[in-house]
C-alpha cells in the first residue's frame, strides 16, 4: 500500500492505521516532513560542550549531525557530510580540536562549517589541483539552526520552526526549565535497541493509561498510581505532553483491586528499602513526571531520578532508545547515592520500565500483517485536551496523532 493510498479513518486521532508502523515509504516521508521539517530535535546537553574545542556527533531522524561550540561561545550544528564526497566528517561520538577534518581527503572546516583547507588545492609540483574557479566559500558544511533551552541544545532544519518556547507551549517550557534547572551533569548513560517503529515508543511514553497497569512495580510500591493527584497537560500543538503525579496525595482506590489488574496482584514489600529513599526536590510537589517533546525526546523525573531519553529511528521496525541519567554538580554525596540507587527503576533493566523494551515490539509483531486495520484509542474520550484531574485517559496519544497527521499531510484524508 502506498502513502497516497493511505486512508486515515474518519474517526481521526482515535484510530491509527497500522500501516504507519511498518511502511517504508511513510518512514521515508517522516524523515523529510518531520525530522527535516518544522520540529526541534534534541542534539546534546549544553554541559557536554563545556570543554574547550569539543565537538560531538548527534542524529536528527537518521541524519548524522556534528554539534560544537566555537571559541567565542557560539554553538553550531552541521550536517556530518563532507562537501566533497559526502563522507562522515566526524566519526567518533566526541572529539577535540579547533577544526573538523574529513579523513578521506583532508578537507577541513571550522566549527561554523566554513571550508578552511583543501589538501593539494594547488596541485603537486605544478600539476593537478582544483580549477581556477574553485571557491572555498561554495563548499561549506550544511548548517542547521540551533537553539539552547533548558540545558538542551536543539536543532532544526526548517526556517519555519517557531521559537522553542512557542514550540513547547508556555506550560511545557516552564515545566522543562524546572526539571532541567541548575548545574546539570551526566551521571550515567546507555542505550536500548527496541524492535519497533519509533512512533510506538512515542505513543507509549504519552500513554498514561498503561503506565500503572503494565508496570507492576509502579503500582505495588506506590511510586505512581492513577489514584494520586496528577494530570496530563498538552501543548497547544498537541504534540508535547506532560504527565505528572504527586506521591504524597495517594488515596488508595479500590479500582486497582476490583479490576484485578496484573499490576495490583503483586503486593510485595521491598527488602532493600534504600531503593526508594528520596528527597523532595521539586517545589511543585511533583514526584513523578514524564514530559514528551515531539518528535523524540522524553524528560523523566521518577522520584529523584532525572533523565532524558531520546529515541532515534533506525528503520521502520527498529529504534535506539538512549538513556542519559542526570544529577547536579551541587548534589551532596547522599543525594548522588539516591540517584544512583533510583536509576534501578528505569533504563534497559529498569524495575518499573523494562517492559517498554518489549511491549512496543509486541504491537509491532501483532500489527505487521494488518496494514489496513486500525487501533482504537478512546479511553478518556475522543478529544485531545489537557486533563488536570485524571490520567485514566489516552488524550496525549490522541494529541500525538493529531499533530502527526497535520505534519504528514494525512489530515482529512
Amino acid at each position, binding site marked *: 500500500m502506498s502513502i497516497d493510498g493511505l486512508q486515515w479513518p474518519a474517526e481521526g486521532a482515535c484510530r491509527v492505521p497500522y500501516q504507519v508502523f511498518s511502511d517504508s515509504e511513510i518512514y521515508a516521508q517522516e524523515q523529510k516532513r518531520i525530522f527535516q521539517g518544522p520540529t526541534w530535535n534534541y542534539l546534546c546537553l549544553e554541559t557536554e560542550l563545556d570543554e574547550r574545542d569539543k565537538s560531538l556527533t548527534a542524529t536528527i531522524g537518521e541524519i548524522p549531525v556534528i554539534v560544537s561550540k566555537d571559541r567565542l561561545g557560539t554553538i553550531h550544528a552541521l550536517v556530518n557530510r563532507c562537501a566533497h564526497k559526502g563522507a562522515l566528517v566526524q566519526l567518533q561520538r566526541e572529539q577535540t580540536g579547533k577544526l573538523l577534518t574529513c579523513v578521506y581527503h583532508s578537507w577541513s572546516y571550522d566549527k561554523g562549517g566554513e571550508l578552511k583547507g583543501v589538501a593539494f588545492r594547488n596541485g603537486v609540483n605544478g600539476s593537478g589541483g582544483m580549477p581556477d574557479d574553485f571557491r572555498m566559500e561554495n563548499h561549506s558544511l550544511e548548517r542547521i539552526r540551533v537553539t539552547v533551552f533548558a540545558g538542551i541544545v536543539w536543532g532544526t532544519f526548517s526556517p519555519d520552526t517557531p521559537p522553542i518556547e512557542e514550540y513547547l507551549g508556555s506550560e511545557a517550557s516552564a515545566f522543562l526549565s524546572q526539571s532541567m534547572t541548575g548545574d546539570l551533569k551526566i551521571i550515567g548513560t546507555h542505550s536500548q535497541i527496541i524492535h519497533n517503529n519509533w512512533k510506538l515508543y512515542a505513543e507509549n511514553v504519552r500513554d498514561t493509561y498503561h503506565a500503572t497497569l503494565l508496570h507492576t512495580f509502579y503500582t505495588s510500591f506506590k511510586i505512581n498510581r492513577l489514584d494520586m493527584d496528577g494530570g496530563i497537560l498538552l501543548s497547544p500543538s498537541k504534540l508535547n505532553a506532560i504527565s505528572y503525579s504527586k506521591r504524597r496525595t495517594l488515596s488508595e482506590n479500590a479500582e486497582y483491586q476490583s479490576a484485578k489488574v496484573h499490576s495490583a496482584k503483586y503486593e510485595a514489600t521491598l*527488602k532493600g528499602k534504600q531503593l526508594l529513599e528520596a528527597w523532595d526536590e521539586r517545589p511543585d510537589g511533583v514526584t513523578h513526571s514524564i514530559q514528551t517533546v515531539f518528535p523524540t525526546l522524553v524528560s523523566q523525573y521518577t522520584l529523584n531520578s532525572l533523565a532524558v531519553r531520546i529515541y532515534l529511528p533506525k528503520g521502520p521496525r527498529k529504534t535506539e532508545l538512549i538513556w542519559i541519567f542526570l544529577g547536579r554538580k551541587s548534589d551532596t554525596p547522599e543525594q548522588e547515592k539516591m540517584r544512583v540507587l533510583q536509576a534501578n527503576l528505569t533504563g534497559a533493566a529498569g524495575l518499573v520500565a523494562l517492559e517498554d523494551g518489549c511491549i512496543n515490539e509486541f504491537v509491532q509483531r501483532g500489527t505487521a500483517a494488518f496494514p489496513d486495520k486500525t487501533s482504537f484509542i478512546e479511553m478518556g474520550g475522543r478529544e485531545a485536551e489537557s486533563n488536570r484531574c485524571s490520567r485514566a485517559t489516552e488524550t496525549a496519544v490522541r494529541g500525538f496523532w493529531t499533530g502527526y497527521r497535520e505534519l504528514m499531510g494525512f489530515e482529512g484524508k
Partner: protein
Amino acid sequence: MQRDQQIQDLLVRSASYLDEDQLEKWVELFEEDAVYRVTTAENLRKGYPVSIIYCEGREMLEDRIAALRNANIYEPHTYCHVLSLPQKLQTEEGELVQTRFIVTRIFEDGRTDVFATGKYVDRYSDEGEDCRFKSRTVVLDSRAIDVLLVIPL
C-alpha cells in the same frame, strides 16, 4: 591452588545458576553486603556512577529476583554463558579477578543471538572463609542492550 579451585568453582556455578533459572541459588553466592553492578565500559571510563543495575547488599538482589518472578513482563528467554579463564589482578584495592564472557540469549521460538560480551571484575571472600562474591562488576563492552535486561548477567 585450593583458592584458585574455589574461585573457578564459584565462577562456573554462578554462570550455570543464571543459565538454568536457579536465580535464588545464584543470589546465595553473594556475601550479605555484596555489591552487584552491571555497567558499561563507557560509564567506567567516564567515571559515571549510574549503572544499568546497581544492587547494594543481597537483599536488593533478592528484590530483583522477586520482581522478575512476579512483576516484570518480558518474553521468556534463557542465557548461555561462555567464560574465559580467570585472571588475577593485584590492585591498590586488593586482589581482583577478571573473567571475560560471551552470553547468548535464546527465546522460546528458537531465536538465538549474542546478547552481551564483556568482563566480570570480581572480588572474593577472604581466604579461609566460604568463598562468595564480595563484589561483582559486570562491565559490558557495548553501550547498547538489545530489547531489555531482566535476568542478571
